[in-house]
C-alpha cells in the first residue's frame, strides 16, 4: 500500500479516460481553435459536427451530465433573451417573411440571426466545457510551467486564487449566518438582501485582506522565496506525437474556417 502511495508521486499520473490522457495544453489549443472557429463561421453543419464530437466524447468518458447541465444554465435564459432581442431588432428587415406572429411578419433574416447565435455560442460553450471535464487547474498550471516555462509565481497565484475563492465563499457563508443570528435580515425581498450586503460583505473582504500577513509568514516558513526549480506533487506525462496532432488539427480547422469565411 505504501509503495503504491509513493509510486503515484514518482511516476507520471495515469488518467482513467482517453480524453483526460491528452496533454492539457495540446487539448486547450484544439478546443480553443474549434471554439473560435464557431465564432467566426456560425453555420449549422459546423455546430452539428462539434456537438456530435462533444457528445460522443462525453458519453465515452461518462461525463455527459457534467457538461449538459452547465450548458443549459449558460444558454437557457440568456439564450432566450438574446433570441428575442435579435428577432425584434430584425423585425423591420425587408425580404422574405418566415411566418406571421400575432399579425407581425417575422422575416427570415431574424430567424437566421437567432439561429446563428445558438450555433456560435452553443458550440463555443460546449467545446470549452468539454475541455474542462475531468481537468484540474493544477495540471494545466504544471504543463504551463514545464512546457511553456511560465514562472512558478504565476502558477502559484493561479492555484492560490482557486483555493482563495473556496475559502472566501466559506467565510461569506459563515459571516452571513453569524449576522443573521445577530438579528440582521439576510433573506427575503431583494431590498432586504441589499441592505444586508454591507454587514456581510465587509467583514469578508476585510478579514481576507488582513489574513494576508499570516499567509506571508507561512510562505516564508516553507521557503517560498528560495531560488531554484520548484518540485510538484503531480507529474504529467510530457506531450507525445499524438498530443501534437490535436494541436495541429485544431489550428488546421481554424485556418480552414477562416479561408471558408473569406471565400464566402
Amino acid at each position, binding site marked *: 500500500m505504501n509503495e503504491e502511495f509513493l509510486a503515484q508521486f514518482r511516476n507520471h499520473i495515469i488518467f482513467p479516460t482517453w480524453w483526460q490522457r491528452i496533454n492539457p495544453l495540446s487539448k486547450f489549443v484544439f478546443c480553443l481553435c474549434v471554439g473560435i472557429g464557431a465564432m467566426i463561421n456560425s453555420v449549422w453543419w459546423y455546430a452539428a459536427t462539434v456537438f456530435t464530437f462533444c457528445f460522443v466524447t462525453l458519453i465515452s468518458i461518462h461525463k455527459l451530465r457534467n457538461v449538459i447541465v452547465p450548458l443549459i444554465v449558460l444558454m437557457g435564459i440568456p439564450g432566450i*433573451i438574446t433570441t428575442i432581442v*435579435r428577432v425584434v431588432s430584425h423585425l423591420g428587415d425587408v425580404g422574405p417573411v418566415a411566418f406571421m406572429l400575432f399579425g407581425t411578419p417575422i422575416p427570415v433574416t431574424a430567424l437566421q440571426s437567432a439561429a446563428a447565435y445558438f450555433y*456560435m455560442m452553443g458550440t463555443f460553450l460546449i467545446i470549452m466545457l468539454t475541455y474542462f471535464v475531468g481537468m484540474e487547474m493544477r495540471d494545466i498550471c504544471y504543463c504551463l510551467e514545464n512546457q511553456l516555462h511560465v514562472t512558478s*509565481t504565476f502558477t502559484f497565484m493561479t492555484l492560490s486564487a482557486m483555493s482563495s475563492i473556496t475559502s472566501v465563499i466559506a467565510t461569506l457563508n459563515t459571516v452571513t449566518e453569524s449576522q443573521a443570528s445577530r438579528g440582521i435580515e439576510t433573506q427575503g425581498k431583494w431590498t432586504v438582501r441589499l441592505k444586508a450586503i454591507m454587514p456581510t460583505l465587509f467583514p469578508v473582504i476585510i478579514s481576507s485582506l*488582513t489574513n*494576508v500577513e499570516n499567509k506571508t509568514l507561512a510562505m516564508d516558513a516553507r521557503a517560498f522565496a528560495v531560488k531554484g526549480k520548484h518540485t510538484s506533487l503531480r507529474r504529467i506525462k510530457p506531450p507525445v506525437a499524438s498530443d501534437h496532432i490535436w494541436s495541429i488539427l485544431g489550428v488546421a480547422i481554424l485556418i480552414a474556417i477562416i479561408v471558408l469565411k473569406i471565400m464566402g
Partner: protein
Amino acid sequence: MKKINKLALILIPIGVAINFVCNLVFGNLTGHMVIGDSIGTVLVAVTCGIVPGMLTGLLSNLVSVAAMPVMIFYAPINMLYGLIAGLLARKLIFKSFGKTLATAPVYALAGGTIGTCITYTMMQGEFSGSMANVLIAMPLYAMGIPKLMSMIAGAVVFDIVDKICVMVIVLLVIKALPDRFLIKLPGAKYVVKKAQTTKSDLDDE
C-alpha cells in the same frame, strides 16, 4: 519585470476571490445590473500598484473560464481597470471620497467601449441579450442611432452605476483597513494620510 512585493503576491489571489464573490453576490441580487467583478482588481491596484492590479484582472477572468468560458475574451477590460486604478491612485485620487466617485465615468467609458467592441465583434454585429442592450441600446437604435454607438451608450450607462458601487466599496474598505496593515503595502503612500500614519505609528510605539 519588477519583482512583486510578497504581500502583493498574496493579495492578488485574494483580489481574484473578492472579484468572484462580489460578482456572485451583486450579480444575483441586482440581475447583473451591478456586476461588482472589479472590486478586487481596483483594491489591489490601489494598494499594491499597476502590475499587481492588472494581474488580478487577468487572473479573475482566467479562473472564471471553467464556469463561464466567454470570460476569456473580456480579460483585457479587467486588466484595463487595474491599469486605470493604479494610475489614478498615483494622482492621490483615492484619498478623497468625492474625487474617487468622480472617476467612475472614466472606468465606465473605457470598460463600456472596449467591452462593447468585444461583444460586437463576437456577436458579429448583432445585439446580445444584456439588460443594457434591451433597456437602452435597442430604443436608441430604433431612434436611428448606429448600432455600435447605441450599444456603447447602453454599456457605459450601466457601467457607471456599477463603477459607482465599486468605488464606494473600495473606498470604504480602504478606510476600514488599519493603517499599520496598509503601510506595509507598496501603494501605502497613495492611500494613507500622512497625519494618520504618524498618529498610528506613535500609538504603536
